[in-house]
């Protein structure tokens, strides 16, 4: 599986679109960090500054879109071109095929994140206190987890559709729902149904990108005040460590469930 994952990773990372995405994300992150320095004189990761939130949103949106899209395309392309069939005949299990695709795609998304955060770190170095470093690293880890969940969703999409065009369209639609659509639904229905904090927390857990956002903000601001009623409810119900653990388990489930679904689906389909 690792050999196939490495093969996928190299071929994806060398692709023109992946290179553009990685470089584009790195440049965008660098610009946001620069703007943060210019406008606020510091990035302020010790608290939740607008620049830190901008970096977080950028890191939650672009690499996850990359992961979902490439995850779907990698599996569909592998089926269309015959590569997965060739490897499967040689004895690699369906779980191995799926796991390899996910590892590779997640690796590419992480490459984008590391490049972006690396550039941001260079920009803010000297302006941000050393004590902010754990929060900076925590932000990176959370966004990496979010990218891993999006890659898993992309891989699931790739097993469910037949062509690369379908894969691209469905993956982008799924990403849009997670990035924007579910929030709009929650905002709309929440007002209409007068949803309480437990319902809002359930909505957070039902969306890996939102769960990652809340987790990142909890790491940046232990008081959870920036999260409003949901943050207050989380901390009251689970305390800080419990809330972090709950969200981390939720993200892990958002990796495991789509991958498990993809394995089950592919076991019942022709390669």
């Amino acid at each position, binding site marked *: 599986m690792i050999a196939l994952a490495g093969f996928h990773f190299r*071929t994806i990372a060398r692709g023109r679109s992946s290179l553009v995405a990685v470089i584009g994300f790195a440049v965008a992150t660098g610009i946001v960090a620069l703007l943060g320095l210019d406008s606020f004189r510091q990035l302020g990761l010790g608290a939740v500054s607008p620049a830190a939130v901008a970096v977080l949103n950028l890191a939650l949106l672009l690499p996850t879109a990359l992961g979902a899209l490439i995850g779907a395309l990698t599996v569909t392309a592998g089926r269309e*071109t015959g590569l997965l069939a*060739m490897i*499967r*005949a*040689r004895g690699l299990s369906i779980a191995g095929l799926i796991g390899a695709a996910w590892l590779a795609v997640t690796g590419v998304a992480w490459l984008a994140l590391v490049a972006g955060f690396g550039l941001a770190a260079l920009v803010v170095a000297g302006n941000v206190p050393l004590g902010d470093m754990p929060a900076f690293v925590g932000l990176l880890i959370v966004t990496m987890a979010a990218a891993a969940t999006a890659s898993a969703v992309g891989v699931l999409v790739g097993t469910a559709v037949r062509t690369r065009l379908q894969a691209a369209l469905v993956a982008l639609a799924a990403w849009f729902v997670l990035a924007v659509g579910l929030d709009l639904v929650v905002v709309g229905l929440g007002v209409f149904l007068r949803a309480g904090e437990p319902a809002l927390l359930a909505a957070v857990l039902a969306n890996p990108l939102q769960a990652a956002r809340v987790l990142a903000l909890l790491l940046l601001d232990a008081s959870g005040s920036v999260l409003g009623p949901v943050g207050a409810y989380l901390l009251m119900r689970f305390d800080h460590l419990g809330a972090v653990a709950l969200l981390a388990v939720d993200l892990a489930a958002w990796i495991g469930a789509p991958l498990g679904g993809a394995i089950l689906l592919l076991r019942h389909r*022709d*390669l």
Partner: protein
Amino acid sequence: MSAIEAPGRTMEIDLVTHAESMTGTRPRLSAHGLVKRYGERVALEASDFELPPATIAAIVGPNGSGKSTLLGCLARTVLHDGRVFLDGEPIERSAPGRVAYLPQRLRLPATATVGEVLALFRRFAGGVADRVAPPPGFVPDERRPLGQLSGGQAQRTALAATLQGRPDLVLLDEPLANLDDDARAATMALLAEHRAAGATILVASPTAVDLLAVVDRVLALRDGRIVHIGPAASFLGRLPLVIWVRLEAGTSGDDLSGLPAALRSRREGDWLALECREEDAVELLRELDARGVPAARIRIGGPEDPTRASPLDRP
């Protein structure tokens, strides 16, 4: 060899193969009740068949006859009913690397290099040394990306990757596509060497002609059913012979279409193609002679094109 008349088709059962299995030589490949359906449509309804070790078998048949589906079933990449056994064990329990499969129209990633493709499949070859090394020049420069290779070079790379290790069952779907004559000859030689080392090889092809130099058996499919399985020579004997008659201007050839020795006929421009069994060819020529058709207007062979057939009045 025996022939069984079934409604709408004739099936020859390879008694040699069954006899081998009955006398103790375990078949390398056994397939039982293979059926593949796409919804209501039955794409493959293959009868039971077996192949011994050290055999090259051609799977022939027109487009859509089920060749690729059959190979996919054997490779475990197409879901199906029925069972497949490799050396008596369910194929799904066979050790990694024992089955090698080259799908039709394989397109490996353009950004991968030849060396990376070979290294990847070496990892899945079961950790054993290659049984047969491809001849020098068969594999392109390992540093070249596949996107820069010609169709033939990419196909040779895929073939070399497929044949790595010591696969006992090799499944190749139209492996000669895109290959020039030299590469075809080299591929045939490679397959023959694998056979000599004990591998059983199934090669799908629309026609058996390009494989006849090396195949031992032919498995012919039509509409998803096996219509012939047996030695290559017996398959050749079953192929219809085409006798071409150049029609005179203004004639339709209808009077020649119904000759008793002709199986069927068709018009191709100025030519009338009369298909017959090889053993009936002389009788058909006599019938044409009796109808006053001169030898100069007759050609034999070239099933698709009279210009590639042999004139009858010249040796």
